[in-house]
């Protein structure tokens, strides 16, 4: 039942966006001049394609995030079971987190965190 409602909310958000756009189409004027549909860049003539290449730093941030996100996924079951596992669990998680802190220190030393 819970997930049924969640799924219905998903449909509802779809309906909301589609409905709102349809409603606005009824009320809103159509743009007569096509220049309005050009990308907005300070009003000057466009220079080149918008899809420029990006700095590799963004990629590294995403990669670091991936590593720590997987870590967080492991931490959820730990946090829920910690009260029962006790000291052993704490020691295990200290080892786990320090391995990952090592990863962070490595990235730090390699000056990944100093980009741009």
């Amino acid at each position: 039942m819970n997930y049924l409602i969640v799924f219905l909310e998903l449909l509802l958000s779809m309906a909301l966006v589609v409905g709102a756009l349809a409603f606005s189409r009824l009320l809103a004027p159509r743009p007569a001049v096509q220049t309005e549909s050009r990308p907005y860049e300070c009003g000057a003539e466009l220079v080149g394609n918008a899809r420029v290449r990006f700095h590799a730093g963004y990629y590294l941030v995403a990669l670091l995030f991936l590593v720590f996100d997987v870590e967080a996924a492991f931490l959820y079951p730990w946090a829920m079971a910690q009260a029962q596992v006790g000291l052993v669990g704490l020691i295990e998680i200290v080892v786990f987190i320090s391995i990952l802190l090592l990863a962070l220190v490595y990235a730090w030393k390699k000056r990944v965190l100093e980009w741009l």
Partner: protein
Amino acid sequence: MKAAWITTALLALHSLSAARDWTQPTLAERAAEAAGRSPWESAFWIGLGLAGTLAAMTLLGLSLVYAERKIAARFQCRLGPTRVGWRGTLQTLADTFKLISKADLVPRDADRLLFFTAPWLVVSGMLLALVNIPASPLLFVVDLNIGLLFISAVGALSVLGILLGGWASNNKWSLLGSMRAGAQIISYELSLTLSLLVIVLFTGSLSLGEIVQSQQEGWWLWRGHLPAMVAFLVFVIASTAELNRTPFDLAEGESELTAGFHTEYSGLRFALFYLAEFLNMFIAAGLAATLFLGGWMPLHIAGLQTFNRVMDFIPPLVWFGLKTGGLIFVFMWLRWTFPRLRIDQLLKLEWRFLLPLSMVNLLVAALVLLLGVYGKGGPA
């Protein structure tokens, strides 16, 4: 079926009164319970849940935008909206109609499919998180047993929406803004998660209903000692960054990127992004209130019987509203006080300071749990 109508009528009254019984079924549980008896009643509860979410979304959206404008004005010694309605209260409604009646522009080079999908992803991420927020024992639609995890999962949809929206627009500002937003949101997501985990650690539960119940004895902010306080601060900072609000608003940075990822969005499509942004602020504040400030639980101070009795008379919905409203005010306060950071400063703050801090903080919390020193004393 008749029972359902009567309960609804009571629901409105009850949520305003001081509910002594704090274990009420959520709307989803009512629906599940009624499913065997009468499918119509079950459908009624589901419909109520959906309609309620929509109504809450609309109301909150309108009032939060108004509040932001008024508060911003006061911070800058202005008056803010005053003309439309009593003290300008209808200003946002008027603005909404204005946005609806704007031409629906899709830029020439935009990717039409993605240009439509992006606002939908952002709105659905917001709406799915909103159903999970317990506003009072009765105004609580769904209590998932993985509630907190679910909220951070649907947060991923919003990030994707922002990234795809920026890419689809085919505009340099948009792409730059959305890439910045993406890097920023995913970075701060980490310390946000780690600070949530402190509370998960103490309660042993991911269900928001259970987390609120666990605070009958006292709010986690006090009972969790230092780790909970640090986690609360980290949570507030990280969610300000997640929300792309100043001082972390480089994704939009109107003085450099026009409007960031939604530069090309106008009219109603823009309104949807805007709505999601404000509602996400409510969700973040509501979540912080639920996790750290006891949700809809009243403030109790151990030993002061009369004081506690009086506090009990304030309805849970009002408690939740006060705590959430206070936090929303803090978000707005931050926004109109601090200047914007640079992207490298922003990422340094997260990766070099907040992330190691919240990791260590989580371990300290585990130590506190292990020693069993929480739960006694302090304002309870």
